[in-house]
Every structure is written in C-alpha cells, then in structure tokens.
C-alpha cells in the first residue's frame, strides 16, 4: 500500500515536471528510521524520493525560509512541488493566507497518511539501538543488539498528533493533487476529528499548573529547535528574540526556568493565531518537553472564540490581524 503511494507520487511528479521546476520531498538516510528532507532539483532525482511511515519532518517549514536561504536554484523558473501529509498541507495553507508564500509558486501534493511514526520513540522502545527496521502490516520488525528481533506495533511509535487526530483534516483548497484514496482517507479521519481531549489547563488550578509548567520548562535548553522548525514562525533572522536593535531586551538567556517560561510564552503568544497544531515543535524538542499542552490550548481557543481554524483555507486571514470597523469583536 505504502509502496504504491510512493510509486504514485513519483509518477505524478514525472508527469507534471517541467524544466526549471523544483520539488521538496523526503529521502532515506543511512540511519534506520530517519528520513531527511530532500530537494529535487532535476528530473532524474525523482526516483530517490521516499515516502513511508517515518516521514515525520514537515516540509512546510522550508517554504518560510526562502528569504533566509537561497534554496531555490538559480535556474528556477517554474513551480515548486511540495509533498505534504494533510497536517503539513494545512501549514502550507496558513502560509498562503499569511501571504508568506505565493500560491502561484507552490504546487501542493497531499499524500494519504495512515499515521506517522516517530523514530525517537522506536529507538527508546529498542533501548537505543536499531540496526534494521522492516514494516509488516501494522508492526515494525526491528533488529536490535546482536541480531535480536523485536516486533513493535506501529501505533506505539506514532507521533502524538496522529493519535490525537484533530489536525488530520484536509484544507478547503481547490488546487492540490491528492495521492492515495481521498474518500478512504476522509472516512478514516471523520470520527477522529470530533474527539474531545481534556487539557491540563481545564483540570488544574493555576498554582498546580504553574508548578507543572515550571517543571517541564526547566529542562528547556533554549536551542530554538521549536522555533526554527515551526512553519508558523516565519520571521527567521528577524525574530524578536534575536533583535539586537530592539531596545527592550525581552529575554536574558540565563536558563533559569523563569526565562524559559517567558520564551515559550512569547513564542506561543506570537504563533497562536496561525498555529495549525502540526506538532513539529514537540517532535523537534531534544529535551522532549510536551509542548502540545500549550498549542492544543491555543488551537481550541481559536476555534471557540473566533470559530477559526488556522490552515483551513488559503484565504482566511488570521483573526488577530484582520479587524474591520463594524465587525463583531469576539
């Protein structure tokens, strides 16, 4: 099934490829279970493309970095094809509606996804060493130390967002290619979307919550991985945390957890209106801080207060920047 999807992506790319195009997709690395983003700059590289259960990196992040890096090749004159899982597709939509990327530039290829596994979770289950991973139905067959084999259910390695399923819906957009069976996909996610999850903010008193937040964020090393992989954080080198010319120094980098809390508070306050809940921050965090406890709160807030789901369409402006006189306030 997965092999078929991968084949279909390749043949789709072959058929729509024009000279001067570029594509962003995934490829294998020498480490079992790690997939890395892959920039296809000419047609004969298409066959190196890989799509399987481990393609966790959201490629929407790279669309935000055009201003920062010369990613596009010099002879680029066509379209940028980007392969996306549905959750990443919503991040791309949000970038469209925030006018960070031109719609004319990007060609969106949405891939049917049956849940993505986190390589680091699998490594943890295998106590740090995996020499080979094979996928069989809904299980991974992993080779550990000394050739011992272990079968791990894929569901145990899923990214948290996949079991949550709130952000699996497809965007309302006319111009994407869908690889896989769209009706089947919609059926799979339809009952996931309306599950209710309890958030710590509801169940805990401020004091308890403060304690929890303090504990979790005290391990933050301020590596900025959460910020840099975030598709909604598109300020790149102009980020408020790195502005030498800003006369208010918001943050001391002394790692005291008070400063870490301020770092994350400001970051979430800034991205809340366009956070699609893709979970990249949590996945990227090397200290495994459960950042989902924050973004889930803001996602729900946006829906409850403004009936607005970031990344749903390519045109709805984020609610905090678009007020017209006479509009209802809240």
């Amino acid at each position: 099934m997965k092999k078929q999807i991968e084949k279909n992506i390749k043949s789709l790319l072959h058929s729509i490829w024009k000279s001067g195009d570029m594509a962003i997709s995934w490829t294998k690395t020498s480490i079992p279970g790690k997939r890395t983003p892959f920039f296809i700059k000419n047609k004969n590289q298409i066959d190196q493309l890989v799509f399987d259960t481990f393609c966790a990196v959201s490629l929407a992040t790279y669309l935000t970095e055009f201003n920062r890096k010369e990613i596009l090749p010099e002879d680029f004159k066509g379209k940028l094809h980007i392969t996306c899982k549905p959750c990443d597709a919503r991040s791309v939509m949000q970038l469209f509606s925030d006018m960070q990327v031109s719609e004319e530039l990007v060609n969106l290829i949405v891939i049917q996804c049956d849940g993505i596994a986190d390589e680091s979770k699998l490594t943890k289950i295998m106590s740090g060493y995996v020499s080979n991973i094979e996928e069989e139905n809904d299980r991974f067959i992993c080779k550990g130390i000394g050739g011992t084999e272990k079968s791990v259910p894929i569901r145990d390695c899923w990214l948290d967002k996949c079991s949550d399923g709130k952000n699996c819906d497809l965007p309302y957009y006319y111009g994407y290619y869908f690889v896989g069976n769209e009706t089947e996909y919609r059926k799979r996610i339809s009952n996931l979307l309306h599950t209710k999850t309890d958030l710590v903010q509801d169940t805990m008193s401020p004091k308890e919550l403060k304690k929890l937040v303090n504990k979790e964020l005290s391990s933050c090393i301020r590596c900025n991985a959460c910020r840099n992989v975030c598709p909604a954080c598109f300020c790149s080198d102009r980020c408020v945390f790195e502005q030498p010319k800003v006369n208010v120094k918001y943050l001391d980098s002394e790692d005291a957890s008070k400063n870490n809390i301020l770092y994350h508070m400001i970051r979430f306050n800034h991205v809340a209106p366009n956070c699609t809940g893709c979970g990249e921050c949590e996945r990227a965090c090397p200290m495994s801080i459960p950042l989902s406890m924050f973004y889930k709160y803001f996602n729900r807030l946006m829906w409850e207060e403004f009936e607005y789901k970031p990344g749903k369409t390519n045109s709805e402006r984020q609610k905090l920047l678009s007020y017209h006189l006479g509009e209802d306030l809240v």
Partner: protein
Amino acid sequence: MRKRLQKQKLSSLIKKLKEDATVIAPVMTDKNEVDFLPVNSEEVILSGARSLYSPKKYIFKQSESMYDYTIQDSGKVTVKESCENEKQIIMGIRPCDLHAIEYMKEFYSGKYKDSYILRRLENSVLIGLACTEPSTNCFCTSLGNSPVDTDGSDIMMADAGSFYFVKGITEKGKKLIENNKDIFEDSQEDDERVLSDIKESCEKAILEKIDVTALKNKVGSAYNSDIWKKYSDICVNCGACTFNCPTCTCFDVADTSRSKNEGCHYRTWDTCQNFAFTLHASGHNPRSTSEERLRQRVMHKYQYTVDQMDQFSCTGCGRCTQVCPVGISMIAILKDIKEVVDNGEE
C-alpha cells in the same frame, strides 16, 4: 589498581560516596529517557547504550553566574566572584564523554585559563563506564576512539556479568578506591580481559564506520566544495546539535539584574548555528548564511581544532545526529567530505 565491585554493593558505594560529595549518575527520568542527575535512592542505570544527554552540563553549565553585584543604599557596590567548591562525583560516563571532558579541559586551560571550569573539574571525580552496547548513531571507532577507552577518567568501570571490573586510573581515583576499600573486592588475574571482550562485541555492533583519522589535516580542502549547500538547504539552524554535543564549548556572556540593586554577570551556552552568534555591532555578519554556519560547525570539529590542538573535537557519540529534527547525519557529511578529499587527491 584493579578491583571488583559486586553489583549489589553499588548502592552502598553510592551511599558512602554521598557523604562528602554530590553523586551524579545516569538514571531514568519520568520522560523515559536516561539522563545524568544527582542521585538519591533511584536506581542507577549502568547498562545499555550511552544516554541521549551528556554529562557536559555538570562541567560546563548551561548558565552560570561569574560574579554577583549588590548595590547598597549608601551607593557602595560590592562584587562577589562566584566560587563553587562543591565536590561532585560523576558516575557512568561513557568513553566518548570522557574524551570530550578531556578535550574541554585542554581547551579551557589554553592561553587563557577558565578558572570556573578548571575549578569544577578539579573538584570532580569522573568514573567512567565501558560501553557494552552502542546506540544507533554511535561512530566513535571512526575517530580512532574505542568503547572502552579510559583516557580522561579517574576510575574506569566495566560490566563483567555479576560484578563490575574497576580500575583506578589517576591518583584521585585510586584514593577514592582506597578510602572505600571495604566495599571493593580484589580482582582476579584475568579480569582485565573483560575490557577486550566488551570492546570486541561493542565495536561489532556499531553501524557506521568511516576512517576519519585518515582525513586528519585534509578536511580543510573541502572548504569550497558544494557539499555544504546540500546540507544547509535542509538545516533549520537550531542549536540542538551543538547544545547536546559534549565537546561544544562556545558561550555568551551577559549581565542581568535580579532586582533593583542586585544582579549578576553570567554566561550561557551559545551556538554557532545562531544568526546572532557572529553578528557585529555594526550590523555586519561574517557568517550570515546558513551554509557558512553549518560549515563552521563541521570544520571546527574536524579541521580547526586539529590545527590548534592536534585533535578532533568530535568524539563520535552521534548525539548531533540523534537530536537533529530534520535528520542530518554527521556520518553522511563525513562521507561526503571523504569523497571530496579523495577526488581532490587523485
């Protein structure tokens, strides 16, 4: 000095050591990850692969105050240099991290001596542990290191089934064993063989091997190649790799006020991957692109420290690869460098 430590005696050893020093050892955190933490009564994990987090943070702290100042009501300013004199014993450090601490020691005792770190090193006893298993990302053999290297440790331990084989390396370590000699047992003659057995089985399991030592002094020739672009396109320039690297030694110095008349001058980890790292006050940035920054990191590890200190500042622990959110593998970069160097030589 060779001894045996029965496994059930480990907890009594820790108890004894705790009497006059903080004991730091790998334990399981509530996030299901092995981390070096001050131990109380938790179970110490001295098996399996190396932990994801290195013990660097106990030598080179993420942030530390260098001096504190207070302003009295009379206007008098008093400055107090922070001077930690706490003794600490770090257990279960793997050979890669020991190499890293050794490197750090040399780095900070160069032309300008860093008294804060050297003092902390002096007050620490480092107890090493030979790796019985590698992790997926380990490549220490590629750098000429081995999973049972003892350099840098005061005491080396190795798992020998029912007991640990313990070897005192430095005077400090030997003294520690001497002070607790009722806990240790005498070792048998062929106990030393444990090390070579572990070495053999562990090295066999390491997935990646590429002879980096052959590239010594040659990595610089890849400076102008196009491999950097390939990886910098993907790199998101976070600092996860550098902050988790046991040999990354860069820091930033700043001042902060704690209240109206109190404050400190402190330093924190800093990373060359950050845009603001090399930003001049004029606004000019000599390493403004991601390509330059990525190249700096790799070149520094494999070329610049070779020029300056005649050693690689990479110990092959593979943590950078493990934490990279976009799956950039150091071994892959090294393979590409090797290709470039080999092609250049022909």
